[in-house]
C-alpha cells in the first residue's frame, strides 16, 4: 500500500488536535509532543516525544491519538521516541503564554532568567525539584507571594 502525502497530512491534522490529559486546554502539537507522522513498514507511524520518561499520561495520549486517527479514517502505529529529547523549547509561543496566564506555570525563556507569571519578578526561590508532576519544579515568588511551577528540562537546568 502506498501512503500519500495527503494521507500523512490528514493524519497530522487529526492527531495534532489531541489534548494533553494534564493540560486539557492545550494539544500535543502546542506542547511539542507530536514529532512526526511518517510512513513505515506497516503503514502510518505517529512519532511522539514524552515530556518526561515514565510520564503516566503516555498510555492515555496513545489511546487518544489512535482514536483521533481512526475518526479521520486511518489506522496508525504510535511510537514514543527517546530522541530527539523533549525540552521546554518545543512548547509553542501561544502555549507558553497560555500556561503563564491560565496555569501560573513558567517556562524557562530561551534567554534570560525565568519570570514569575503573576508579577514578572525574576529572583524566584527554589522550593522543590519536582512538584505535583515530574515535569515541573516548584518555586516561590517573594514579591507577589505565589507558589510558581516551572517546567523542567531534562538537561537539569530549570532555573
Amino acid at each position, binding site marked *: 500500500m502506498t501512503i500519500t502525502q495527503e494521507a500523512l497530512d490528514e493524519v497530522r491534522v487529526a492527531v495534532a488536535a489531541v489534548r494533553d*490529559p*494534564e*493540560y*486539557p486546554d492545550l494539544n500535543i502539537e502546542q506542547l511539542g509532543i507530536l514529532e512526526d507522522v511518517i510512513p513505515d513498514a506497516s503503514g502510518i507511524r505517529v512519532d511522539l516525544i514524552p515530556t518526561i520518561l*515514565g510520564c*503516566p*499520561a503516555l*498510555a*492515555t495520549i496513545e489511546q487518544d491519538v489512535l482514536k483521533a486517527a481512526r475518526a479521520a479514517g486511518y489506522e496508525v502505529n504510535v511510537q514514543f521516541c527517546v530522541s530527539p529529547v523533549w525540552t521546554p523549547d518545543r512548547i509553542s509561543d501561544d502555549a507558553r503564554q497560555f500556561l503563564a496566564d*491560565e*496555569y*501560573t*506555570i513558567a517556562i524557562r525563556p530561551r534567554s534570560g532568567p525565568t519570570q514569575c507569571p*503573576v508579577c514578572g519578578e525574576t529572583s524566584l526561590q527554589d*522550593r*522543590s525539584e*519536582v*512538584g*505535583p*508532576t*515530574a515535569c515541573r519544579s*516548584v518555586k*516561590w515568588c517573594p514579591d*507577589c*507571594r*505565589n*507558589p510558581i*511551577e516551572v517546567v523542567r528540562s531534562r538537561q537539569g537546568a530549570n532555573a
Partner: protein
Amino acid sequence: MRTWQNTEEFEGFLNAGGVVEPNDAMPEPYRQAVFRFIELHANSEYMGGLTERDWIPKAPGLHRKLTALAKTQDEIGHAHLLYMVAADLGIKTREEMMVDLLEGRTHFHNVFHYRVHSWTDQIAVAYLVDAAALASQQAVFKNCSYGPYKRILRRVIAEEGFHMRNGEEMMLLMAHGSSTQHEMMQESIDRWWLPAVQLFGPDSRPDDELLRWHIKSERNEDLRDRYVQKFVPQLLACGFTIPDQGLEKDPNDGKWKISPIDWEPLKQTMRNGGPDSARRISDARNAWNNAAWVRDALTNQPAAT
C-alpha cells in the same frame, strides 16, 4: 497593598468580583477563614496522597502502578503548594500545621477516615470520591476570592480531571468484566457511595461566611444534588445498584432524590473518630518521623537520636 475601611467596603469589593492578594491588608476574620479552609484542603491532599501510596505495590500491573505513583505525587505536590500558601497567611508555620494534623488537633476530609479494603475499593475512591472532590474544587475555583489559592486550584482541577478519567476507565473495566469483578465493584460502591455524597458536607447555613466571602461559590446541597443527578444514572447504566433504599426519581421534575442523611456519624468521623482515623493518623505520623533526617539534613541540624 490595598486597604479597606471596614467590612462593608471589603465585602463590596468581593461582591464586585475582587480578588485578594497576600500583600493586601485583608480583614483578620477573612484571613482566618481562608487559612482554615486551605489548611483543611492541604491536610486532605496529604492524607489522600498517603492512601494512594499504599496502593503502589498492590496495584495490578506496571501501568496501574505507574498511575498510582503519579497520583501519589500529584496529591503530595498539591499539599506542598497549599501548605506554602497557608503558611504565608502568617497564622501557623508549616511545621505547626503538620504537627497539629499528626496530633489529631486539625481535620481532613471524611473520605480519608475509612479503610480501603480492596482494589475495587480503590477504584470506587478514584471514580466516586475523586469526582466529588473535583466537583467541590471546581465550585471553589469558579468564584474564589483569594488569588494564590485560586491559581493553585486551576492546576489541581486539571490534574484531578485526569484522575477521574482514570477512575472511570477502571470502573468500566470491572463493570464489564467477569461476574466476580462486577460483584466486587458493587460491594465497593456499597461502601463508598455514602461517604462520597457526604463529602460535600451538611447543607450550607444561610449565613455561611465562606459563601459570603466568595471562598466557596455554591451551597453544599446544590453540589451534592448535581453529583447525584450525574452519578446515579451512570452507575445504573453499568448494571450497579445504589445503596440507598429511599432513592427515587421524582415524577414531577424527573430528578433523583436520595434519602435524608444522618450527619451524626459524620460529625464523629470528622473529629478523627472514624473507623480508620487512628490508623491513618498514626501512619502519617510514622511517615513524618521517618523523614525527620531529611528535614534535619536540609536545615543542617544534627539529627536527634
